[in-house]
């Protein structure tokens, strides 16, 4: 399916939906039109919950507040000023402005580098509580608990409001759908899956989150504005925690991460609750609560995907079972090699590629690294060796994330990294490959690679590229390991070796000048190790990269290194050529003392992604 055909199909579906909206008032009674007009607007807010929670992984309880921003802007302006077209535009602008302002504060609080998902969630929980309280305290200005009512608004018929609300929902859903399927939209899933990897791919995830959050706030505010203009009433509960959690419940029931699920979840549950809660107010709540818990525990994907899956499952009974792990996606068709002239990476600064001076790292009273000084030039392959707990991985972390070290300076390519976050270090030319293969498990190989290129090639907000240009180094790894034959395979289905190769090619796609590799050959077969070794030599010799390698396999180190640094108990005990290190008595003692039989044979992978100090 070509790109234009795909987009036309989406647009055709949107046109059909618009036609259905247009027909609505002719086939529905007045009652349903009225109830659904509000439900359609609620559904637009549920859509933003899905974008944030289902795609980006931010569980938010506070989207109601943005709805209320738009609604109260209309209510306040129309109550305290006259209703004129100018004031109507002013109200819309104020509503959007208030929502953006609020979202910016929340974004600053909740999405900074290092904030946990739980903290962000709790901030969005506090938001509606504060907002509601402010509305209550507003006295006659905000109407306090009674809200504002009896203001004049646009003189539209019931049908026209239905069409407006419906068209707005269809437009937002279509845009959101195109966005999440686009190259840029895939970044959202990547952040949800593995935010750390995104940062180390040079992506400013905080900024991405805040941008999406702001956009969602605007959608909510516009929905709220239409709501107030239609219903001619605003009340504090619009901003409330209960409405905020209702949105989450609709999203969960409909199916997070599907966009259509939450939209229909909102429409159906809200419409049905209008019908049923009158008859059984408490039982209805109990049913909703029970179904909600059940869905979360047993069917986390929600109900819509189950409905979609039903025919597939039934067919699956008769057909031989194929790979049904995920719906087939349009595979990224081809890879291309970038012209070497375009892959200069970060600008080469003066002096050494990497200069580490006086670096120390302490956890409380425990010192893990102390007085680390060394320099490495472009084209050098420096191996870091030492027993477990010597501080090798910690040193890697300090070079790749300015916030990690306790003291000292690190200069990459002539840039002092200061206390900058990983994405800024990537911009200076650092590329870090983790010890355990760190990729986006649910994304395909091609998608993983594309995200690694996002820093260089700004992804489209609405299109999917079908050619992915990669730097020669990355292409080389891909071709050597045969990854190019598995471009549409989800990463979690890859073998251990291929996962390592994928991560390496992702890091190389960054066009780094300083490559940090933490045991890239751990758990690989002999052949795979040979391949990686050849690639590394090629990278340093031909491409002039500076490679810093943590490695236990001294045979491997001996074959490829130009220099070896031995770490012991957080200090550099030796820095010299391969021969010097191999001949060193000190190194033998270090290893013998730490209980290692001999570094030459130590190749077993360690458990756990993070090295525990001590």
């Amino acid at each position, binding site marked *: 399916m070509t790109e234009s055909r795909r987009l036309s199909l989406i647009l055709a579906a949107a046109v059909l939906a618009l036609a259905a909206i247009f027909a609505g008032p002719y086939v529905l009674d007045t009652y349903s039109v009225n109830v659904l007009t509000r439900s359609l607007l609620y559904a637009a807010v549920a859509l933003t919950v899905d974008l944030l929670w289902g795609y980006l992984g931010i569980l938010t309880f506070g989207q109601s507040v943005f709805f209320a921003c738009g609604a109260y802007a209309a209510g306040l302006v129309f109550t305290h000023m006259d209703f004129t077209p100018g004031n109507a535009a002013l109200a819309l602008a104020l509503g959007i402005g208030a929502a953006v302002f609020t979202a910016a504060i929340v974004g600053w609080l909740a999405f900074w580098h290092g904030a946990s998902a739980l903290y962000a969630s709790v901030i969005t929980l506090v938001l509606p509580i504060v907002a509601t309280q402010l509305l209550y305290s507003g006295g006659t200005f905000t109407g306090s608990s009674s809200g504002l009512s009896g203001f004049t608004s646009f003189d539209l018929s019931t049908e026209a409001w239905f069409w407006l609300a419906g068209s707005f929902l269809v437009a937002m859903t279509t845009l959101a759908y195109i966005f999440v399927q686009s190259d840029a939209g895939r970044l959202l899933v990547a952040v949800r899956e593995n935010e750390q990897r995104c940062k180390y791919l040079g992506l400013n995830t905080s900024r991405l989150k805040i941008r999406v959050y702001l956009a969602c706030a605007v959608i909510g505010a516009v929905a709220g504005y239409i709501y107030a203009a239609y219903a001619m009433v605003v009340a504090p509960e619009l901003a409330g925690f209960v409405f905020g959690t209702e949105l989450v419940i609709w999203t969960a029931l409909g199916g997070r991460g599907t966009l259509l699920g939450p939209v229909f979840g909102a429409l159906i549950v809200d419409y049905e609750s209008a019908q049923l809660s009158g008859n059984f107010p408490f039982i209805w709540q109990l049913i909703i609560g029970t179904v909600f*818990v059940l869905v979360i525990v047993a069917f986390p994907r929600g109900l819509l995907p189950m409905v979609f899956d039903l025919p597939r499952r039934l067919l699956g009974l008769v057909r031989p079972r194929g790979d049904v792990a995920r719906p087939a996606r349009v595979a990224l068709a081809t890879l291309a090699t970038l012209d070497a002239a375009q892959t200069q990476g970060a600008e080469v600064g003066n002096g050494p590629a990497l200069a580490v001076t006086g670096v120390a790292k302490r956890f409380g009273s425990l010192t893990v690294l102390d007085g680390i000084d060394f320099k490495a030039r472009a084209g050098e392959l420096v191996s870091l060796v030492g027993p477990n707990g010597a501080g090798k991985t910690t040193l890697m972390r300090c070079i790749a994330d300015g916030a990690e070290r306790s003291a000292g300076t690190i200069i990459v390519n002539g840039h002092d990294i200061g206390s900058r976050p990983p994405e800024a270090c990537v911009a200076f030319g650092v590329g870090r490959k983790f010890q355990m293969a760190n990729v986006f498990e649910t994304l395909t190989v091609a998608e993983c690679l594309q995200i690694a290129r996002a820093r260089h090639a700004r992804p489209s907000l609405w299109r999917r590229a079908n050619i992915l240009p990669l730097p020669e180094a990355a292409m080389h790894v891909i071709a050597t390991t045969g990854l190019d034959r598995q471009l549409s395979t989800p990463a979690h289905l890859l073998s251990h070796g291929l996962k390592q190769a994928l991560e390496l090619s992702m890091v190389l796609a960054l066009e780094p000048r300083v490559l940090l590799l933490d045991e890239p050959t751990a758990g690989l077969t002999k052949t795979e190790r040979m391949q990686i070794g050849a690639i590394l030599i090629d990278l340093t010799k031909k491409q002039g990269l500076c490679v810093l390698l943590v490695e236990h396999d001294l045979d491997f180190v001996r074959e490829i290194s130009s220099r070896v640094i031995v770490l012991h108990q957080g200090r550099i005990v030796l820095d010299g050529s391969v021969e010097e290190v191999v001949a060193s008595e000190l190194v033998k003692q270090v290893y013998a003392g730490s209980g290692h039989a001999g570094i030459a044979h130590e190749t077993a992978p360690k458990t756990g992604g993070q090295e525990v100090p001590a």
Partner: protein
Amino acid sequence: MIAQTLDIVTTAAILYAVATGLLLVFGVMKIINFAHGGLMTLGGYAALVTTQAGWNPWLAIPVAALFGGVAGMAIERFVVRPLYARPLDAILATWGLSIIIGQVITIAFGRGVQFTQAPLSGTLDLFGESYSAYRLALVGIAAALGLALTALLQGTRLGLETRAVIMNEDLARGLGINSALVRFLTFTLGAALAGVAGALITPLSSVDPNMGVPWLVNAFMLVLVSGASLLSLLVACLVLGGAQVLVATHFSPVLGGLTIAVLAAVILRIRPKGFARD
């Protein structure tokens, strides 16, 4: 001045009693238990049942612990355990549970406010100030709770294992600690403490199906700024509870009601560890 000091100390004591159960669960399981408010409500109704049966109002405390503990066992086994790998979902599911608990109580007892007998009434004279006797008693009860929990964590084998799981669950499991059991017992204990908190606040609070809700957010924030330490929780309760009382007294009670939540959010933004030590 004395009145205000007493207000701060007693407010901190109430907050401490309300938040300890949540803190234990957060420390071990790294999730915020949204059903905490529902479990508190359950404890409040346990107190109601106790006094309606004509028993001594102080008996409400063990009865509430029993109610909360049993509910906690069921919740841990059937809801929280399957969501071990999905912490945000665990939060949502416990939120759903609090809806269920609220509605079941509504159906069983009605929506209205219920009357429970208070174990202590009247005032005591302290430093020349006559002050609510029950609030003063709560300071003692909260202190006893804190000491008992500290003794449990520091002095018993289970406590040692629990602390190990709090610090590093993978490592603890590697050392042969049955972390699933530790989680189960912790959640049960946390739920029992929520029940006790519910019973403890009945003389101050109204007993109705939503009685736990107003306490919930403040308790969340206190726990988030405290990390997993009972000591830093005490500090947080005194500092933030004190700030609440001061703001409510000198500015406005409306701002006072928001003080803990807003202050805690800002503290965590500036210092992610909150009141916890390194």
